[in-house]
């Protein structure tokens, strides 16, 4: 029923996406496409709708309107079978911000990865063992860390486990929802380098949900800027960050601390206004 996807077809495509929560329009007519091995950043502040978009793409929320397709297959309607859900899991995976709450506290890193391998690939024990070692190596977990429970691991190590778990499904697209935001600066750099290495070696595509423009500059080729659920600017990351066109993008850019930066006060906040 569908044509075979061509190599240059986008691996993830979102068209006219809309989400309403009651009277609130959280996401309004958002469209984007991510090519294979490409990376797109969705930038915005709290309440911009960026996490809602991520949740719709992985199927945790239903869009009010619009289409989402991954690897050429529509995923805007609910999956009708366990098999269909698993197949979608092999197309798109997500890594959340908080590695402290997104892992099962009773499962070692190995068991966490093994569960995904069994579910998605149904491989025999020996092959799974080899793949666990391979994935642990890819994300830089040593033998002891692989056998440890989450509470015995640091924040950066837990985030590596979460990344390995996501990669175990061999997804074509990895959604990184503020995945490096909670990490210490020195660990954040390690994880960003790891993500760049993984993209080079596997050809996975990234959708990076972030409020941090420096992280976006480092990892994303393309960027869309979201404000109150609406895309206000889009383009190549370097172009958008070096010469922002929309007032909101300019304000975001000007708010980032950098050498010689001095914060400036705006006006008084009147009744009903929020900062």
């Amino acid at each position, binding site marked *: 029923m569908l044509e075979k996807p061509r190599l240059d077809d986008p691996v993830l495509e979102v068209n006219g996406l809309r989400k309403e929560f009651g009277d609130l329009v959280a996401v309004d007519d958002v469209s984007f496409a991510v090519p294979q091995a490409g990376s797109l950043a969705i930038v915005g502040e709290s309440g911009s709708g960026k996490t809602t978009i991520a949740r719709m793409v992985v199927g945790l929320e239903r869009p009010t309107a619009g289409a989402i397709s991954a690897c050429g297959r529509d995923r805007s309607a609910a999956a009708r079978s366990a098999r269909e859900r698993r197949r979608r899991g092999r197309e798109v995976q997500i890594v959340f911000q908080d590695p402290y709450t997104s892992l099962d506290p009773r499962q070692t890193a190995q068991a966490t990865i093994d569960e995904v391998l069994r579910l998605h690939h149904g491989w025999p024990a020996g092959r799974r063992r080899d793949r666990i070692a391979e994935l642990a190596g890819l994300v830089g977990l040593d033998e002891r860390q692989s056998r440890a429970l989450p509470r015995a691991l640091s*924040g950066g190590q837990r985030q590596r486990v979460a990344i390995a778990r996501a990669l175990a499904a061999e997804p074509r697209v990895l959604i990184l929802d503020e995945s490096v935001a909670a990490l210490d600066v*020195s660990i954040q750099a390690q994880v960003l380098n790891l993500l760049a290495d993984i993209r080079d070696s596997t050809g996975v595509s990234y959708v990076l949900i972030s409020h941090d423009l*420096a*992280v976006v500059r480092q990892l994303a080729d393309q960027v869309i800027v979201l404000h109150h659920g609406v895309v206000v600017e889009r383009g190549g990351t370097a172009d958008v960050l070096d010469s922002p066109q929309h007032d909101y993008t300019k304000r975001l850019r000007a708010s980032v*601390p950098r*050498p010689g930066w001095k*914060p400036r006060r705006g006006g*008084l906040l009147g009744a009903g206004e929020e900062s």
Partner: protein
Amino acid sequence: MSVPAPTPLLEIDGLTVLLPVEGEQRAVLREVSLEVSAGEALGLVGESGSGKSMTARAVDRLLPRGAQVSGQVRFAGGDVGALAGAGLREYRNKVAMIFQDPRAHVNPVRRIGDFMTEALRTNLGVPAPEARRRAADMLVQVGIADGERRLRQYPHELSGGMLQRVMIAAALLTEPQLLLADEPTTALDVTTQAEVMAILDDLRREFGLAMIFITHDLELAAAICDRTAVMYAGQIVEIRESALMHDDPLHPYSAALAAARPDIASTAHRLAAIPGRPLSAFEAPAQECAFAPRCPYAADPCRAAVPELVSLDGGLSRCVLASELRGALRPGLAERSESGG
């Protein structure tokens, strides 16, 4: 209260703090010494477990129960450790603290006005109507126009940025001389952060307040602080004028921390990541430099003893190789591979 000219407002001298964890006393601060002059802003920068928040808590006498403290904190020449009762309350009016998560530090069922005026009414005996007038005026100072209405609201009715402005206003009401700001903008959106930073900087100068500004972000500290102190594993490893800290760091950790951060103006092929992970104070080796295992310059002398803080080029550095490395730690000279632009 007048401060004799040569005495710094705040002096921390050899402060070591141990906390009971899992049945043993673990170090969280190791021999921390620093001074803050009246009206001066000092940035305190470090990663998790470096001891930056514990330093502020020790200064404000807010350490957890069972803490074992040695060394001294002096405020305007007086020993803070000796304070109790009314003296301690009076001290806390002079040394105000604001936190990362304002919601965790307000009582959600008390109105803003009640919370803001409490210290004025109970500690300083200001009559309630006068206290409310001062609170409303202070809200204008932090950029909130309709103060009277805000005083009647509850914390959940305000956004995070608005609530942090309220916390700053509340902290300033008792006319403190020193503000301890513990990551006050970390939980805020970047545009709100810029606004709150500007308010802090503005009011601090207007009121002649000294400030210790705690953050994990060197650039953020540099934006509003005269000097920056960098902490690692419970120790201060460098203190320097903020602008020089960026252009010409004296300690390999300060340089590595600045280089590891992605840059909004350029894309690196790979970031200059620091190998390993930051150590907590209690994990630090007793007989060597705590940063040595992660340091690209580490050599035998680094593993012979814990380095002392030494004076160099107007700053202090806890690195035995500091004078040899002079100038070599400047950004761009470190092994940062740049591409794109």
